[in-house]
């Protein structure tokens, strides 16, 4: 424990120095509107802690809904494409091409489809954002199994189902989690940007948008900090799930 603290000491020092420089150097230079002091942001958070954490939770649920459906869809489609290679070869170039599109640009469109107040509009954009990295990573995991592993299963006269259950899916797990971790970040981005284009006043993105319009920058920054906190916890939770389910592989750290 002591050693872990010692290991993280340099990072903590940099964090503290960063805050000090922000408070007494950068913020005075930039002006308190453009870059509020950390102390002002902290005060704004404290005065609005209930509102902000409720808003954060609201938007996190939007992100989570999209994450669950988008990731599940990505994994299922990857399994189908890995099982029927010909279909995969036909579809994959498009999946990769779509993955390169800045999908976030569709946020106003999903709002139009489902209505800005309907959480499904945020699920849709967060879900589409998660779908492709999970699909691409899962498919890579499922298909990058060593040929001898498959030959071994053939020597046991294993069915395709058994090959997936015993070899392909377990060996794809680390890849799937890589996709899921990217997905957590993208889902939060999707939900917040979705809020920007219209949503419930209870949503964090809407709170950020409104406070900035009213030049309440400390509140806006505090809301961004809350969004980051939810995003980090989301990421760490998936990381913890990874450590629980991916066993027997030396941990590489993040």
């Amino acid at each position: 424990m002591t050693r872990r603290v010692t290991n993280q000491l340099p990072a903590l020092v940099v964090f503290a120095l960063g805050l000090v420089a922000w408070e007494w150097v950068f913020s005075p230079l930039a002006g308190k509107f453009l870059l509020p002091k950390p102390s002002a942001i902290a005060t704004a958070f404290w005065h609005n802690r209930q509102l902000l954490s409720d808003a954060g939770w609201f938007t996190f649920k939007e992100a989570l809904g999209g994450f669950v459906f988008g990731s599940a869809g990505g994994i299922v489609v990857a399994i189908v494409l890995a099982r029927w290679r010909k279909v995969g070869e036909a579809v994959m170039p498009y999946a990769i091409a779509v993955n390169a599109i800045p999908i976030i640009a569709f946020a106003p469109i999903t709002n139009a489809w489902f209505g800005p107040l309907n959480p499904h509009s945020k699920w849709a954009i967060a879900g589409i954002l998660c779908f492709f990295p999970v699909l691409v990573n899962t498919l890579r995991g499922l298909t990058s199994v060593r040929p001898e592993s498959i030959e071994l299963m053939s020597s046991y006269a294993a069915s395709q189902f058994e090959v997936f259950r015993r070899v392909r899916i377990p060996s794809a797990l680390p890849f799937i989690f890589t996709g899921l971790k990217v997905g957590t970040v993208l889902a939060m981005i999707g939900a917040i940007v979705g809020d920007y284009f219209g949503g419930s006043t209870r949503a964090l993105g809407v709170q950020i948008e409104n406070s900035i319009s009213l030049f309440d920058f400390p509140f806006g920054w505090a809301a961004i900090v809350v969004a980051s906190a939810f995003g980090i916890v989301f990421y760490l939770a998936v990381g913890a799930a990874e450590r629980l389910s991916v066993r027997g592989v030396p941990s590489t750290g993040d």
Partner: protein
Amino acid sequence: MSVVELKNVTKTFARGNTIALQGIDLAIEAGEFVSLIGPSGCGKSTLLRTIGDLIQPTSGTIVVNGKPAQQARRDRDYGIVFQDPVLYDWRTVAKNIALPLEMLGWDRTRRAKRVQEMTELVELTGFEGHHPYQLSGGMQQRVSIARALSFSPALLLMDEPFGALDEMTRERLNTELLQIWQETGSTIVFVTHSIAEAVFLSTRVVVMSARPGRIAELIEVDLKQPRTQETREDPRYFELVTAVREALARGGADKITEEALVAGDET
């Protein structure tokens, strides 16, 4: 009865129009330890895989345990060991060894008992709960051998199992493998590119030549059993090593042409 019987087996790969195997006739009797040796590209690994029905021949017949190779594979009549141990990282040593037993539907107690016997056989008692990455290369390959033998197949196919190990580990595992062979009475078909290993282990060495892959010569190894470190100093051992080396030279081991290298190694 022959455990393995190949008649006029030919394998051509469409890609590059390569003739990997041509007119292979070979019968392997129960209890034999047969090594396949030859230059890169002679098709020795391909030949092993046709016996295991992992690759189907273009023509010819393969009979394993008195039935077509495909039926033998479906009946799980053989165990196989590759150069790479092919252990599943997410399974412990015990669970890797038990993999074929799970697929055969053995219950938990029966599996545990067999795993214990197998870890004793390959001298890995105490490592049952370890994961593969915690073991040395030699230990990993012992797990792989235990897994292949766990369901007591009559036939063991081995594709350069010790090729990636250092010389000392390889010699120790050679001796262990011979002990296992004598204890289990199984038939072993063993692919290697080491002349010394082939002579030390085998009752018969099949010398192959490349392009197309053919059987050049069969050499009976009449060294006495059981083989020990002293076997490696026996004058007869050196005579046989020389005989295999000369057979390889006659079979065209030195004729590995540029074409062969371009066409790629056997798969």
